[in-house]
């Protein structure tokens, strides 16, 4: 549904995208993770016809974003980083305006606006100006505006940035529902938990390139499980680190020592025995799966080193 080959875009001398490849099959949710400035927004802007690529090819719904931009626009919805809705108009006025501008015709635009308001739980607020909406309501309205044409492909550029946990949960459930109905979604985010929650496939991008891709579970396997020991006394940390082996990492502030654990049971047994023999009292002990944050940091760290 989205197919990107060797896409390049520079701003002056700075490459924003540097030969990026990406394939998103129909009906899937694809997460795009990366630090600020990695090129996520540039990619979304190219795929939504807002920006012209310098090199490479990008197709959305089978259409070339460069040469068939007008047709692409009939098949996509965009929810950007800002809630791009008119603050002064009411929720209903906003959706009706976007409906008319999508050439639905006046009557169909009115009907579509009413449907979407209902679907996103905004019917009660429909007659109020948007500047009185909460962050979550605003983002839901923005999402509704992106769905006016029931697009087969939806682009969400950091859709929950700046939202409180409730607002985030509201947006997540809306995205899950859309995905359930077969909409292809490309989601950029800085929150790895968000990708973990929503996306079947994740690409991590850094410096305009995909540096790792896979399911969230596959990406976590790259880093592997870790055994973690939380000490009672800061003075025990060196001893605990010595017990866990040469790869042990100490986080002194948290009184935590961790090390890779290829074999979960073996690592635990060894740690328990060693701690008992050394007579070190501890606060907590366990084997943990890595979070996507750790995967992310690890992969982008590697890039720093190799550069």
């Amino acid at each position, binding site marked *: 549904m989205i197919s990107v080959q060797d896409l390049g875009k520079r701003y002056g001398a700075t490459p924003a995208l540097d030969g990026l490849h990406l394939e998103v099959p129909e009906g899937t949710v694809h997460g795009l993770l990366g630090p600020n400035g990695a090129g996520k927004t540039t990619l979304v802007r190219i795929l*939504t*016809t807002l920006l012209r690529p310098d090199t490479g090819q990008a197709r959305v719904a089978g259409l070339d974003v460069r040469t068939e931009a007008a047709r692409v626009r009939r098949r996509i919805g965009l929810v*950007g980083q800002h809630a791009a809705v008119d603050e*002064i*108009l009411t929720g209903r006025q906003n959706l009706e305006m*976007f409906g008319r*501008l*999508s050439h639905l015709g006046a009557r169909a635009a009115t009907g579509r606006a009413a449907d979407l308001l209902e679907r996103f739980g905004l019917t009660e607020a429909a007659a109020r100006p948007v500047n009185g909406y909460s962050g979550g309501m605003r983002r839901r309205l923005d999402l509704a505006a992106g769905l006016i044409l029931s697009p087969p492909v939806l682009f969400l550029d950091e859709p929950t940035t700046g939202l409180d946990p409730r607002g985030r949960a509201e947006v997540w459930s809306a995205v899950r529902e859309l995905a359930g109905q077969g909409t292809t979604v490309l989601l950029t985010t800085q929150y790895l938990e968000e990708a973990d929650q929503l996306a079947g496939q994740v690409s991590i991008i850094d410096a305009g390139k995909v540096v790792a891709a896979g399911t969230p579970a596959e990406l976590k396997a790259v880093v592997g499980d870790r055994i973690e020991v939380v000490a009672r006394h800061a003075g025990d940390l060196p001893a605990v680190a010595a017990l866990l082996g040469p790869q042990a990492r100490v986080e002194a502030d948290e009184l935590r020592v961790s090390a890779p654990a290829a074999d979960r049971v073996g690592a635990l047994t060894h740690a328990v025995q060693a701690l008992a023999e050394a007579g070190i009292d501890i606060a907590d002990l366990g084997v943990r799966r890595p979070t996507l944050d750790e995967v992310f940091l690890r992969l982008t760290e590697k890039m720093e080193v190799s550069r």
Partner: protein
Amino acid sequence: MRWALADGWTITRRDLAHWGARPGQFAVTLLFPVLITLMFGYLFGGGLNVPGGDYRSYLMPGMFTMTMLFGLETTFAAVAADARRGITDRFRSLPMASSAVVSGRAAADLLASALTLAVLMACGLAVGWRPEAGPGAAPAAVGLLLWLRFSLLWLGIYLGLRATGPEAVATVQILVWPVAFLSGVLVSPATMPGWLGALAEWNPLSATAAAARELFGNPGWESGSVAAEYGPALAVAWPALLTAVFFPLSVRAFRRLNR
């Protein structure tokens, strides 16, 4: 083409809806020139003399012209805010006629300025200003004023698309004042030091103000100055030049949003 008009009208209606949603703010926009007029007419006007008549009769065509300049701020601020908030991008991602983003804004702003002008003319009549020339001349004066406003639309759209931050709005709001004062809008350039007077005389606002005074039959400057001599011709030419420069520049700035 049909969509270009229909979409442009949808965008214009958005602005009309803004007026309806914030009547207080719209009223302030309408009444601000009235306030400035009363300030100059009554607070400062007593100390100002113009050849051949009453200061308020001299002032009104100048205020009409200055109001057209104030419209520039509205255009600039609205275009810059839409770009900053991502609304322009949303429009550009829709299957609408892209020219409508600009033409709809232009129509709404021109309408707002026409309304402001009507309110200010009513205020002028109330303080004793009268269009003294024939019945055909006054509409021509209004036409020239709106022609100036039309040309300033493109300057406003161009600057709004190129502006980077909200502070640019404040800069434009401040800069319109010296531009307005350094003209024949409020006083005759003949009263200014030589080089400053020359600059003021060549200000496009001076041409429109002089032409409006002539067409309304109100007292103007002593003859001999360029703007007084060629007022109407310059009042056609200056906005034509501004439009010729800034219309293509704004179209280019809009197209270049995809760079």
